[in-house]
């Protein structure tokens, strides 16, 4: 009896592990891909960040991160990512609310496609788009001037921190719409009906039902936006030539410049610093996501 049970159990285990490996075998290309392009680079990056130019082990690469201009760059990068993520999250959720409540299904799917395109725009083309539109001789600048508003009359310039915030919002808001819409669509009519039947007015319904349900989704989306804004590189580089110090740009000059040689290990250390910040953001994302999923499963 006892023996039989053990035998059964181990047979079950064997069968299960066998079935897992056959089921996941189509994923092997994916694992190889992730291994090559994510895991291996991260490991070698971390190793290199602890090496000096003579291949010796050292902590020296990390010391400059703790003060001075490199530390400042982290502050500016985090500030930029937070501001653009916040703008994206707030405006994006407002748009989602409008879309979910007033747009028909056809219009919504058109909007989805548009948002997907905008959310994935980035790099030098995005910077150029804004330069061509809002630069000193941009199309919109000229148009606004023709109707009497010279946006360059005051202190405004596209090529500044404010300008970069403006440009980043262009992909942050659509991204927020894409990731936050399912959450708002998931609000069930029954809940609002039930609340009203139980005597709630719309304010209490929002305060006690909608906001608590949506907060985890909102936060997870915010962290996702933060991670995107934190790591963006080419757009800001093309627009500021280093006058706005951002960590990815500094890494770029250290590992891929024509001026500073043999400081790639410092760049590696900065990159590891970025991984840590992004890791914190992504943990926030995952925790919030898990809470948000509770409602979806229900």
């Amino acid at each position: 009896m006892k023996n039989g049970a053990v035998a059964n159990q181990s047979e079950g285990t064997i069968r299960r592990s066998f079935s897992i490996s056959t089921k996941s075998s189509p994923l092997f290309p994916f694992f190889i891909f992730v291994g090559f392009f994510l895991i291996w680079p991260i490991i070698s990056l971390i190793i290199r960040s602890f090496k000096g130019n003579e291949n010796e082990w050292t902590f020296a690469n990390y010391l400059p991160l703790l003060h001075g201009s490199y530390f400042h760059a982290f502050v500016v990068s985090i500030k930029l990512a937070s501001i653009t993520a916040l703008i994206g999250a707030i405006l994006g959720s407002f748009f989602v609310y409008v879309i979910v409540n007033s747009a028909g299904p056809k219009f919504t799917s058109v909007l989805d496609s548009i948002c997907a395109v905008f959310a994935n725009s980035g790099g030098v083309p995005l910077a150029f788009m804004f330069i061509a539109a809002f630069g000193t001789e941009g199309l919109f600048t000229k148009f606004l001037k023709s109707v009497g508003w010279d946006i360059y009359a005051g202190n405004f310039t596209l090529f500044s921190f404010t300008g970069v915030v403006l440009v980043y919002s262009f992909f942050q808001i659509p991204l927020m719409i894409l990731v936050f819409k399912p959450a708002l669509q998931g609000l069930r009519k029954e809940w609002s009906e039930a609340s009203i039947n139980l005597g709630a007015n719309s304010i209490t319904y929002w305060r006690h039902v909608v906001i608590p349900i949506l907060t985890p989704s909102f936060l997870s989306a915010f962290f996702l936006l933060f991670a995107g804004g934190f790591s963006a590189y080419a757009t800001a580089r093309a627009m500021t030539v280093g006058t706005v110090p951002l960590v990815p740009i500094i890494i770029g000059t250290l590992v891929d410049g024509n001026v500073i040689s043999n400081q790639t290990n410092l760049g590696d250390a900065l990159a590891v610093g970025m991984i840590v910040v992004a890791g914190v953001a992504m943990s926030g994302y995952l925790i919030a996501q898990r809470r948000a999923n509770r409602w979806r499963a229900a």
Partner: protein
Amino acid sequence: MRKSIISGVVAAIAVAVLPVTMATPSNAYTNFSKCSDLKACGGMDALVKAAQKEGKLNVITLPRDWANYGEAMDLFSKAFGIKITDDNPDGSSAYEIQTIKSAPDSKVPDAVDVGITYGVDNANLFAKYKVATWADIPAQYKDVSGRWYGDYNGQIALAYDTSIAKAPKSFADLKDPAFKNMVAIGGDPTGAQEALMSVFAANLASGGTTKNVQAGIDYFKALKASGNFVPVLANGQNLAAGAYKVSFSWDFNGPGSIASAAKIGKTIKYVIPTDAVIKGTPYIMAIPFNAPHPAAARLWTEFLFSQNKGMLTKDLGSTAGLTGSKIFASIMGGQNIWISGAAHPITEPAMRAKGLAIDPPAGFETPAGAKLVTPTPDEQTAAKALLKDQWPAISSK
């Protein structure tokens, strides 16, 4: 008297014949990865023959309109029948070094053209090879054993769109409110050599010395505060969009930029500023120790350092059946091709003395009596340290 003439002639014949006779038997076992000058490689005929046998040359990060490299590559290819592959034309010096270290054997560059610090810091990656014009390269810009040597340098010029009301002539001019929202730089000075030298030039124009670039940084700060400086990357695209009108640029990017601007209907002019002539430290040429086409690499380097005036691609006919040294002697050397691209080849002073240099393109002449200043590598390091902290601060509100 007579005897000495005869012996002179005999000696001359001997000198001319010797390399050939020596080359022929030794050719079979010349190790082109190791031979450290033309003689050791068996002479020009043998070198060309071996290079043609290899048939290929890998170069790296050479934009066609940079110092007229396009012409140099076309001419070399056509004259010797060697196919050139230019990897990542817009890449950086750091990329070149990285490729030597990590590319698969056949993709390693045969020759690199990098910022001087990259040569000094990575000398162990390069083979020893002294070009025939070695003696004309100034001592401070070459490695004694021939691992790397300066090839050409640039001077900082003002490039401007001729549609603007006032043509700038100096750094001081650009402070004028007429240039509001117009002035741009070619990159981040902590990452781009051209931008770093622009700061040195602004510094010099503002009364600073190469020892301390603070005055140059302050110049940009003031220009930013007055709204004249637009921190957009100075490149063809942004010029086309009208994002800037005046930029600081290497003079050797001039002919290419002028031509590509003309294609989009813009007229650009280059002028060497009257209040500061900064001549950059030269870029350097080096042959990686693991060059996959070692003979072609050495021929390419000899070609780039040749001071010949000869033919350009458009004038060159078929070279079939000609000996290597004949072909080499008939085409323009790289040093003059660089002059034609408004660059300043490293042996230019020696060439001028010997009457071998051609004239620079019109409009790119250095003003007569201008004092050329070149910051030393140490001064550049000091400037970078200062810029690292101060450049990001120039735009803070």
